[in-house]
């Protein structure tokens, strides 16, 4: 064959024929053509997700691989974007609760609490003591549930299926409690501006105490099942490394930052809801890797149990909603013949006895209350880190703007720093250790 290697066009040599120039696409000369190029022999771009069982949600990763080594990791999000921030601008302040609770759906009560605390700060009011204690109580139950899901799904993604079944089984106990208290397993809309939708139902305190008796043994079971297990250790240790400098540069907070050694917990450093009066520790680790994050989360479950027990002891009878009838939702919920609704007593009151009560009810339900103009930023410590609500009011009955600084959104930025240079299997472990919730990331 007369085709010769042509350095100007190595892929297609050519020769002159009577019909003109004929090009012949050649092959097998890759070694010649690649030359001194930095691209290695096995560069492969893999698209992982958005529908993938191991990406912790609808998350898409674009991975540059060199063999099994990840040289580049790019994260693509937005597949779960629901425009909640925009939607809230077209609802009144109370309705906002039902929207924000759907953002980080594994920590719904944190969204509600932070949103309501922001609205209360704009209004210049404070929820009654009992409401604050119950808020703290349900939030800590929620933290346990959230950490257990993080552990369960993380375990599943690493192939530890018993971690998943046990994690979801224990989480179910938390959800049963939350269902009993709020009426719903998730998306509770239980915390409202000014207090709570309703008081603890009868028997809830006893059930929480039963849960407190069972749970420590279950946590110990997790340690028996996973902590000493060589496979679990080798999958997590030295994987997804991010030190304090990296955390601060990338804005990572929560267990990621505490596993790097900085005891930064907003419940301690900027206390709210009276956290400064409770006795609890901020667990930290010094490994700055997925292993440390696992240990921090497990220790936080124990601290939450301590907080729940203390909150139960402090529950004093009292109102769970502010007295101000211009803000407080007038009706109490009760179970009637046709399901849950306004209590018959309240309906009788507004329809038969008090014109003013009817007016208040009508105004609050149709129009809502006004919030003085201004802006606030309220950060709280959610299971995943700093959950901040930047709420702007123009003085009307609707929020002018609600921006959520969701910890999953910020922490997920650390994916590249945690996984580049490692093995592809460790990408899964690193992302599982971030524990992002895509509902919160995309909002």
């Amino acid at each position, binding site marked *: 064959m007369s085709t010769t290697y042509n350095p100007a066009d190595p892929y297609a040599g050519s020769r002159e024929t009577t019909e003109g120039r004929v090009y012949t696409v050649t092959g097998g000369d890759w070694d010649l053509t690649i030359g001194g190029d930095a691209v290695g022999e096995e560069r492969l771009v893999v698209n992982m997700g958005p529908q993938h069982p191991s990406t912790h949600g609808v998350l898409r990763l674009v991975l540059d691989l060199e063999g099994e080594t990840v040289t580049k990791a790019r994260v693509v*999000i*937005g597949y779960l*974007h629901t*425009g909640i*921030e*925009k*939607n809230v601008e*077209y609802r*009144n302040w109370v309705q906002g609760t039902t929207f924000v609770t759907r953002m980080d759906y594994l920590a719904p009560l944190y969204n509600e609490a932070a949103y309501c605390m922001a609205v209360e*700060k*704009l209004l*210049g009011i404070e929820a009654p003591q009992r409401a604050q204690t119950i808020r703290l109580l349900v939030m800590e139950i929620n933290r346990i549930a959230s950490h257990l899901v993080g552990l369960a799904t993380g375990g599943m993604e690493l192939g530890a299926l018993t971690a998943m079944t046990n994690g979801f089984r224990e989480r179910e106990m938390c959800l049963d409690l939350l269902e009993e208290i709020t009426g719903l397993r998730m998306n509770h809309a239980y915390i409202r501006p000014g207090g709570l939708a309703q008081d603890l139902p009868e028997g809830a305190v006893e059930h929480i105490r039963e849960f407190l008796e069972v749970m420590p043994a279950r946590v110990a079971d997790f340690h028996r099942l996973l902590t000493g297990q060589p496979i679990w250790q080798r999958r997590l240790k030295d994987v997804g490394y991010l030190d304090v400098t990296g955390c*601060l*540069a*990338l*804005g*990572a*907070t929560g267990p990621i930052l505490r596993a790097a050694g*900085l005891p*930064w917990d907003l419940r301690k*450093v*900027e206390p709210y809801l009276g956290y400064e009066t409770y006795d609890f520790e901020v667990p930290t680790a010094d490994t700055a890797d997925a292993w440390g994050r696992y240990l921090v989360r497990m220790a936080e479950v124990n601290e939450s149990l301590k907080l729940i027990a203390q909150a139960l002891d402090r529950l004093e009878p009292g109102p769970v909603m502010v007295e101000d009838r211009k803000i407080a939702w007038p009706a109490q919920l009760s179970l009637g013949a046709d399901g849950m609704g306004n209590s018959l007593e309240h309906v009788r009151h507004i329809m038969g006895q008090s014109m003013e009560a009817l007016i208040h009810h009508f105004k609050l339900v*149709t*129009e*809502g209350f*006004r919030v*003085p*103009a*201004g*802006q*606030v*930023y309220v*950060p709280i410590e959610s299971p995943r880190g*700093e959950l*901040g609500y*930047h709420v*702007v*009011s*123009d*003085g*009307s*009955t*609707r929020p*002018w*703007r609600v*921006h959520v*600084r969701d910890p999953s*959104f*910020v922490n*997920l*930025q650390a994916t590249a720093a945690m996984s580049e240079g490692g093995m592809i299997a460790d990408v899964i472990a690193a992302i599982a250790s971030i524990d992002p919730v895509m509902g919160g990331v*995309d*909002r």
Partner: protein
Amino acid sequence: MTGPGDRSDADPAQGAQAPSDGFRKGAFGVTGSGDTSGFGGLVRVEPGGAVALHSTERPYGGYFDEVTDALIEAVGEATYAAAVRRVLVDRGEITYFVEREHLLTLVQALRDDEALRFELCSSVSGVDYLDSGGPAAGPHRPRLHAVYHLTSMTYRRRIRLEVAVTAEDPHVPSVTSVYPTADWHERETFDMFGIVFDGHPALTRILMPDDWDGHPQRKDYPLGGVPVEYHDATIPPPDTRRSYR
């Protein structure tokens, strides 16, 4: 929908009191509709609307004075005077309204100066103050605000910076060189508000699809939506429902 934007043609005889700041109109003086309940077209806007236009006088109270003094010392009196147009202390939070030309100088000093040490950029977001009451949005009152929440872990302090730009010239320098965490925040703010962060390594859409038109969280972005029939009643789309402002 009756918004505060049309207050210019409000007839004073209708009960509209339109001084330069707050106003109220509608209520029982509403005309042109069969609605005598007072709810249709009732508009009440606080002085300045959503964006407070006044400035707080020193002393600011709390740690705000220490932060301000340290900031002045770090960047110099002249730069501070040129950079910070006004300062607002409200509800225990301090906001510095910053000129965009000096934003990078300020955040660099805020992060690195020993007396400031704002190590963590908690959040960057946008607010569109179009028609939020007060003077109409325009070159003198730019509508798009980029809002930065900075946290000092060393001193346990928080401050807020705000940079205002117009929709016609929505350029703000990117702070990613100082705070790498601002990367996704700025992409989201660009995506939702169309604020262009100059110097950002890859300012692309992040939540909306790549080929999306417009910036959805701007106040003049059409909501769309269709009327929904439910139990023989028709519920209009959210942006055309009557508004109880």
